[in-house]
């Protein structure tokens, strides 16, 4: 039998916990992680009768900011809706969410893939509230409502992903984006970023969406997300190859291996009986307000990386590291603020290479002035320091709190320009290696061995080009 080749069709729903002090609709503390159970609750988030939800202004603004940076249009007239269902993690009997007027619609996020950049369309970005936490053991369900009412931003994509790599790249970009914007810490260990996967397969060449869709909820990490995709592709492929069509259903996650299982039938959308939340008046977002939020959006990681490569001719990997976090790019941009463009690649290399390595392994150190990195670069450019001694100078400078120039002088680490010392060593090396000198006629590369010997005795504090010239002069070899 001819093997049928399938293509994966994936859409994502992502929930991101907004970085606010208080909950979405009440003033309870939103920081629930490891807090005493049921210590961050009030009549509103416990769903007690008569409580009135009042939206958190900051949370709405963070949602607008996220939507804007995902290139969404903003619904200037927006509202909240009730999504009704009975489950004890929602004591009100409904979740306050958004239905037909989400804050953001029709966005796009470009992600880096193996074949270059790909645009993933964003269907919607809306604001809602988290539910409480339920745990089940021995016939009982235990409930903690500290998480109930914590603001969540939901981002829904179109089914634009065709493989696991695209999904992973998107998830990482989105995580970086919301951290960049200071919208969320997106700490997955704390459940601040969660995924829902919609996955199905179709024959290669088929243009229409598959006739079924499998949903997997509550995926708490990118590595598990990858495993679930692998598992579902295998499972669905074997059903399709046998001539059947996989059931349209919601599947649960058995454990961290990515294996899924069929869950009981869930409510369909009409069963949620969405209707406008009568306790919260309509929301109008003015153009002025949208623009003021747009102004707060910093240059985003992808643009920053592209600019570093274009303007400073930086290596792709170095540009990636530099644009990855505000803590890094802010420091780097401050560092190069007054330097000429020419030396930026050298500074970037030193900063992300030797400097990061030393910083990581030496927790205890004296005060190190960042601009010393520029002095260090200047020493290299002026030929006063060789690449091999840079790390040594930087380490001593870092540990002792002395400037590189001071360190070089004090520790005698600079390039030896005293030709007498150098000449003496070269003479010794020539006398001690008669065989190599003989070889020189047949193999001109043998001279590098001599240079190496001299460099070793000089402990790297000499310029190899100068040594080579000196040796050639000594031996009467033409130095053109």
């Amino acid at each position, binding site marked *: 039998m001819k093997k049928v080749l399938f293509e994966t069709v994936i859409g994502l729903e992502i929930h991101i916990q907004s970085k*606010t*002090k*208080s909950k979405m609709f009440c*003033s*309870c*503390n*939103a920081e629930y992680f490891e807090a*005493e*159970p*049921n*210590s*961050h*609750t*009030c*009549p509103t988030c*416990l769903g007690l009768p008569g409580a009135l939800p*009042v*939206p*958190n*202004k*900051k*949370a*709405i603004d963070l949602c607008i900011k996220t939507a804007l940076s995902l290139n969404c249009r903003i619904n200037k007239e927006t*509202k909240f809706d009730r999504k*009704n*269902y*009975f*489950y*004890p*993690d929602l004591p009100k009997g409904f979740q306050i969410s958004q239905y037909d007027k989400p804050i953001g619609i029709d966005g796009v996020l470009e992600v880096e893939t193996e074949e270059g950049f790909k645009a993933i369309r964003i269907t919607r970005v809306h604001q809602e509230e988290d539910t409480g936490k*339920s745990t*089940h053991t*021995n*016939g*009982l*369900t*235990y*409930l*903690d*409502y500290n998480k109930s009412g914590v603001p969540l931003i939901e981002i829904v994509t179109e089914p634009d992903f065709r493989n696991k790599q695209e999904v992973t790249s998107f998830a990482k970009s989105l995580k970086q984006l919301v951290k960049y914007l200071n919208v969320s810490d997106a700490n997955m260990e704390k459940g601040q970023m969660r995924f829902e996967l919609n996955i199905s397969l179709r024959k290669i060449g088929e243009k229409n969406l598959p006739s079924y869709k499998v949903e997997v909820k509550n995926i708490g990490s990118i590595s598990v997300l990858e495993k679930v995709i692998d598992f579902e592709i295998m499972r669905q492929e074997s059903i399709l190859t046998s001539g059947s069509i996989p059931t349209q259903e919601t599947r*649960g996650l058995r454990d961290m291996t990515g294996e899924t299982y069929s*869950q*009981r039938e*869930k*409510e369909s959308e009409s*069963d949620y*009986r969405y209707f*406008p939340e*009568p306790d*919260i*008046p*309509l*929301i*109008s977002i003015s153009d002025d307000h949208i623009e003021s939020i747009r102004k707060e959006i910093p240059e985003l990681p992808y643009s920053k990386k592209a600019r570093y490569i274009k303007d400073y001719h930086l290596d792709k990997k170095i540009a990636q590291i530099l644009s990855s976090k505000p803590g890094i790019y802010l420091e780097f941009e401050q560092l190069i603020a007054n330097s000429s463009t020419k030396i930026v690649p050298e500074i970037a290399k030193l900063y992300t290479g030797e400097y990061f390595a030393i910083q990581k392994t030496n927790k205890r150190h004296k005060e190190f002035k960042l601009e010393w990195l520029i002095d260090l670069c200047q020493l290299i450019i002026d030929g006063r320091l060789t690449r091999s001694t840079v790390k040594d100078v930087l380490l001593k400078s870092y540990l002792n709190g002395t400037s590189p120039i001071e360190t070089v002088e004090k520790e005698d680490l600079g390039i030896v320009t005293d030709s007498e010392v150098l000449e003496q060593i070269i003479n010794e090396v020539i006398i001690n290696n008669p065989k190599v000198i003989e070889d020189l006629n047949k193999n001109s590369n043998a001279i590098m061995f001599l240079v190496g010997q001299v460099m070793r005795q000089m402990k790297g504090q000499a310029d190899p080009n100068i040594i080579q010239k000196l040796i050639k002069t000594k031996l009467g070899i033409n130095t053109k």
Partner: protein
Amino acid sequence: VKNIDRKTILKISKLANIEITEDEVEIYSKQIEEILQYVNKLNRVKKEETSFQSHTNLKNIFRDDISKTSLSSSEALQNRSKKIKDNLFIITEVLNR
């Protein structure tokens, strides 16, 4: 045309998490049917003449992001069932969603 049959009533009862008796199925079928017929009048209104209107003239009612003291856990748990463990609400096990 009848909109409500026995099956629909049982489904609503399930979604609402309220058990009803056979007699009640009859009663509610009739009542809900009547309500629906009445509300159906809305369908005769032309769509372009309507837009979503709020029941209030209020708009943009927000609060600043300030966290205030919550109820103490003992206050929050006042109406809990008799069982108690680690300040958690405890109920008969419900299936995992």
